[in-house]
């Protein structure tokens, strides 16, 4: 049995088996390969692999080789529990058990099926994992007689491979299930956020709408005092709306649902759009405000609306934190990339805070910033949007000397960058 030729054959077939175990996650296919090779190599006539079902405490037939339909049906009709004599012994001792002649055994329904199909000897190997039995490998011979130790040794290797296959399949199934659960949970979460944001915004829109009508004298002329209060009402309402929108944006990014709508855009138009939106804010604080856009900028491709959002955030911050001096936007293109800089003469950002401010819910920790409010989400959203364009955003700043926020991105963005 252990001639060099035979050993080579064993190696070849084991190789085939482990390849099957590693290459396919279809448990049935793997087990069928294992049992076929096991039968051939042990020069027996038939074999089967059973998987132990923890819930029912029964062995279930999962793969067969050399067994006819009638016998398979006969075995499937049986409830094979731990109590079967030979199985009990195998389970208790956790080692292979053989029956050299079935006719010498006390009769049982299961044995009768096997004997009826013409078998006289069988060998059962437990499929063991530390601490538990996951199944069994059985080979049967039509001739009675002992199974040699070399056969048992070889089959033990097959039993180990079966355990691996069963484990892999279980893990795979668990991962699949978890993945599905996560997908469902994530969908629920996104739907919840979308609904919530809608529900929060609806009444807020009404509040902002009425406030504006009142400020426009639609309901008669308000007193100066009322007008001041209405303006506070309006600015707080707008702030709240900004917070809701930021939270919604960030949760969409988190859920991987924020997708860029790629289209052609003009960086120059984009900058000027932002300038006209924030000009009144700069004027209110008596800040100098200028935009320097390089002439003949190439047409960009990307999500113009989202890029405006980024620039608006940077310029809005610059105005918010600067009390004297100026805020400037500079836009240029070189080597296929746009670079936009937003400079201010504000208080500056300490070095330790310069990376932190791009993280969620982080603002540079100083009394100045706390007074200015904000969600601390704007920059982290800006960073995600720029990164989705395959670009980069950073700040250069020195305390007392102002800050410059830069972002750079490819002029033509044809596909959304993978999110990290």
């Amino acid at each position, binding site marked *: 049995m252990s001639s060099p030729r035979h050993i080579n054959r064993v190696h070849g077939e084991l190789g085939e088996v482990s390849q099957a175990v590693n290459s396919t996650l279809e448990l049935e296919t793997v087990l069928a390969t294992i049992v076929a090779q096991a039968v051939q190599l042990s020069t027996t006539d038939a074999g089967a692999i059973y998987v132990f079902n923890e819930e029912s405490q029964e062995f279930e037939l999962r793969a067969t080789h050399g067994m006819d339909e009638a016998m398979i049906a006969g075995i499937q009709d049986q409830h094979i529990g731990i109590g079967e004599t030979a199985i009990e012994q195998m389970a208790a001792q956790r080692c292979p058990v053989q029956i050299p002649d079935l006719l010498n055994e006390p009769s049982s329904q299961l044995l009768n099926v096997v004997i009826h199909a013409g078998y006289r000897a069988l060998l059962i190997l437990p499929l063991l994992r530390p601490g538990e039995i996951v199944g069994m490998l059985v080979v049967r011979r039509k001739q009675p007689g002992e199974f040699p130790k070399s056969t048992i040794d070889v089959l033990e290797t097959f039993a180990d491979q079966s355990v691996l296959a069963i484990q892999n399949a279980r893990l795979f199934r668990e991962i699949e299930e978890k993945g599905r659960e996560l997908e469902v949970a994530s969908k629920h979460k996104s739907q919840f956020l979308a609904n919530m944001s809608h529900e929060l915004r609806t*009444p807020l*829109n009404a509040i902002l*709408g009425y406030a504006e*009508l009142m400020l426009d004298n*639609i309901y008669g002329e308000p007193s100066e005092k009322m007008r001041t209060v209405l303006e506070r009402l309006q600015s707080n309402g707008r702030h709240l709306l900004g917070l809701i929108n930021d939270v919604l944006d960030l949760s969409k990014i988190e859920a991987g649902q924020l997708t860029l709508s790629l289209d052609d855009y003009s960086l120059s138009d984009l900058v000027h759009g932002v300038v006209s939106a924030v000009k009144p804010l700069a004027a209110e604080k008596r800040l100098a405000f200028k935009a320097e856009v390089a002439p003949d900028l190439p047409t960009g491709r990307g999500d113009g609306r989202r890029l405006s959002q980024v620039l608006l955030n940077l310029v809005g911050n610059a105005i918010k934190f600067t009390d004297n001096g100026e805020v400037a936007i500079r836009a240029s293109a070189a080597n296929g990339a746009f670079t936009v800089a937003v400079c201010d003469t504000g208080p500056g950002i300490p070095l330790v805070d310069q990376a932190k401010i791009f993280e969620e819910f982080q603002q540079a920790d100083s009394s100045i910033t706390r007074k200015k409010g904000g969600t601390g989400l704007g920059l982290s959203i800006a960073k995600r949007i720029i990164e989705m364009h395959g670009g980069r955003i950073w700040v250069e700043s020195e305390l007392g000397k102002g800050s410059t926020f830069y972002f750079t991105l490819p002029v033509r963005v044809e596909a959304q960058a993978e999110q990290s």
Partner: protein
Amino acid sequence: MSKRILVVEDQLDNRQILRDLLTNADFEVIEAVDGEAGLAAAAAHRPDLILMDIQLPGLDGYEATRRLKADAALTAIPVIAITAYELKEAEDKARAAGCDGYMAKPISPRQLLAKVREYLSSPAPTR
């Protein structure tokens, strides 16, 4: 004669804001609370402009607009869609349904009034 505007909007507050805004600007305002009522009001009153909320119970604003635009007698009336979210998909869908204009909430009454005037060839008298 003042121009007639049909407001199709299910929310009471939004309807009132639009009514107050538009009547104050000397427009005649007709209101409908859902898509079906909007179609009936459009046929009965032949407005000069329709402000169509998209998120309506039952027949939504897209479908109501599609039906309006399929009706030869009503197809010429400009329809401005009002959606709950500023999304390119929403705008594209509104345009595909036949809407002439598009605005996303939150809508500033001032901006809306400017848009309404832009769509009505002869501007309403100023106060």
